[in-house]
């Protein structure tokens, strides 16, 4: 399988974290880590607000008091507030890059991408107003720069920059900035975050406990080792000469020393527009959406529970059958991952009532009866001992690269598309072992496919792999597109297991 260099580089980075963090790879939890940093920012921000004095002299001196006199609480809180804000920018940018490099931003998933870009526009000004409140020379520098940027917007009359000339500023300025930083901007951000996650299900806003504890300890250690400090107090009669800029938030200001404010706007707006339109550059060919067959649907709602994109809704039965509910697929939200098919207990290949297997929900481009046919054909094509059938996915390791005399692979839209009964069906029809692959563990292209399948196999989620199927003939192994070694080792492990089982059976 050809993997583009960008994706290959990202996957290599992920491998490092898989090695060091095992199941807690932070790159798989960038969104929740960002949320976690915001919790830290919120809690520390509330504490910092209490001793903060919103006036020209009071602002600087109250922050100095926090930093130096009560360094052990307020000073640490201030440092945590700053460093968590910086860390949030890193996780947001990595999150953005990850979704792009893994091609998880196009097709039906455009919505999460497009609603995510404005979040950057909200978080960065939130950080900027935070720096204003300190009212040191850095605040003076960014206040003047921000005023120049706002003056360049033609809808404003007058010059805001004149407010930052000697003797012009008043305490009312701090009231405005306090309102923005403490209430206005955070509220807007919360609404925007809600929009961002609207089209996904099972939204998690907390990272795994181990990752949260580790990140917090790291931030705390940094806060104690390198406490955040202020510059000299702002003096509007003197130009700040050298500045320790926070480049995560204040990176555009130096541009104002070389470009006009209009050119800086052009650059930032241009980048934003480009990012927003990325999902259509080029547009993704979408798979046909899942289709419900009410004749075979009993309204159990499992597909509704398992859909990662909230594309399935439940409604009252419309066909007069005795079942209470039926499900409806919204084609505009369906990514065509097929996880709903794996969740459908009527997608059972053992059903013999009809020649063509028709489950309650199916993928028109790759129906379950086709999967059943491919399963039989693959088993038929294998020769020799210990025939292993591998069910993989289109986003993981390429299945066709596994083909040998006694190994065959079938690539699904997603590993979550595999009905557990298909494993039993393959074993009953001549396969000696079944390896279920897919994306890397915890890194499913479709969010939950690999996790749901694993839970179904170990009977933690419906529909589960039947007890009468010999589970010892089945193993799971997550494998990304470049993980040849992992999947080959899994095949060796399964073969060794089959040999032992055979030896045991033969006494």
């Amino acid at each position, binding site marked *: 399988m050809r993997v583009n260099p960008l994706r290959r580089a990202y996957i290599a980075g992920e491998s490092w974290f898989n090695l*060091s*963090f095992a199941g807690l790879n932070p790159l798989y939890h960038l969104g929740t880590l960002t949320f976690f940093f915001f919790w830290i920012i919120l809690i520390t921000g509330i504490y910092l607000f209490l001793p903060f004095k919103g006036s020209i002299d009071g602002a600087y001196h109250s922050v100095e008091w926090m930093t130096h006199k009560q360094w052990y609480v307020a000073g640490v809180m201030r440092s945590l507030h700053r*460093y968590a804000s910086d*860390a949030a920018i890193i996780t947001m940018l990595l999150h953005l890059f990850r979704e792009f490099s893994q091609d998880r931003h196009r097709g039906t998933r455009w919505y999460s991408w497009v609603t995510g870009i404005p979040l950057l526009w909200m978080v960065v000004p939130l950080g900027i107003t935070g720096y204003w409140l300190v009212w040191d020379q850095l605040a003076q520098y960014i206040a003047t720069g921000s005023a*120049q940027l706002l003056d360049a917007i033609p809808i404003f009359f*007058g010059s805001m920059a*004149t407010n930052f*000339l000697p003797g012009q500023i008043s305490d009312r300025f701090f009231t405005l900035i306090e309102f923005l930083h403490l209430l206005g901007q955070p509220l807007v951000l919360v609404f925007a975050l809600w929009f961002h996650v609207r089209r996904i299900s099972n939204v998690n806003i907390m990272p795994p406990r181990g990752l949260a504890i580790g990140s917090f300890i790291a931030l705390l250690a940094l806060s104690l080792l390198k406490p955040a400090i202020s510059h000299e107090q702002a003096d509007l009669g003197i130009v700040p000469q050298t*500045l320790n800029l926070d*480049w995560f938030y204040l990176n555009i200001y130096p541009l104002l020393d070389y470009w006009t404010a209009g050119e800086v706007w052009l650059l930032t707006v241009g980048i934003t527009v480009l990012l927003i339109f990325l999902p259509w550059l080029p547009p993704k060919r979408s798979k046909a959406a899942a289709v419900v067959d009410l004749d075979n649907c009993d309204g159990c709602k499992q597909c509704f529970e398992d859909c990662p994109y909230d594309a399935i809704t439940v409604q009252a039965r419309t066909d007069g059958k005795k079942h209470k509910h039926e499900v409806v697929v919204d084609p505009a939200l369906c990514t065509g991952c097929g996880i709903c098919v794996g969740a459908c207990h009527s997608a059972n290949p053992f059903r013999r009532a009809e020649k063509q297997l028709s489950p309650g929900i199916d993928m028109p481009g790759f129906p379950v009866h086709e999967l059943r046919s491919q399963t039989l054909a693959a088993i038929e094509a294998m020769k020799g001992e210990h025939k292993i059938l591998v069910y993989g996915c289109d986003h993981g390791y390429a299945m066709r690269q596994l083909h040998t005399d006694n190994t065959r692979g079938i690539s699904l839209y997603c590993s979550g598309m595999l009905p557990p009964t298909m494993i039993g069906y393959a074993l009953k029809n001549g396969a000696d072992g079944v390896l279920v692959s897919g994306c890397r563990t915890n890194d499913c292209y479709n969010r939950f496919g690999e996790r749901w399948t694993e839970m179904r196999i170990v009977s933690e989620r419906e529909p589960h792999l039947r007890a009468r199927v010999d589970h010892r003939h089945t193993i799971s192994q997550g494998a990304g597109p470049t993980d040849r070694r992992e999947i080959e080792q899994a095949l060796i492990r399964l073969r060794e297991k089959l040999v032992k089982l055979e030896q045991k059976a033969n006494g």
Partner: protein
Amino acid sequence: MAKSSTKFGQYILQALSYAVFMAVVWYFSVAPVYRHIDADQALVVIAFKHAGQLLEECRESTAEELANLPANMRKPMVCPRERSPILLEVLMDGEVLFSQTENPPGLYNDGSVSIYHSARVPVGKHQFELKLKDSVRSEGYSFTHNEERLLESAEILVINFNTEHGFVFK
């Protein structure tokens, strides 16, 4: 034993990853240091708000104009609202520091013009010459001003203007 040593190795790698992450967070939160203005430079800021003179004087309405208007809208005098553009020229030691013509804002071009311009200049003694023209109905500049100033490192010299006092150095 092998399992516990693997776990220990993982913890070491995790600590290393956290350390690298925090080093990146800390470094870019304060560095590299940015020099906004050199030690041998000062800043000159020209900032003021001024309304140009009216383009035309008020005049009496003609009989024809009055006849074309409804009775309740007939006014004896017509006073156009449009104002003249503002032409500002600032020279330092004979060199042009700033020269700009600003049109009045507003739907009827009747608003006050806001000027804000800053320039970094070398420290030391400088001769400033300022000229402002705010009426198209008169020849030459409406206001002029000459002043010598000694600028120190990082000093901000603010040049203001109002009709009553003309150019004011602060």
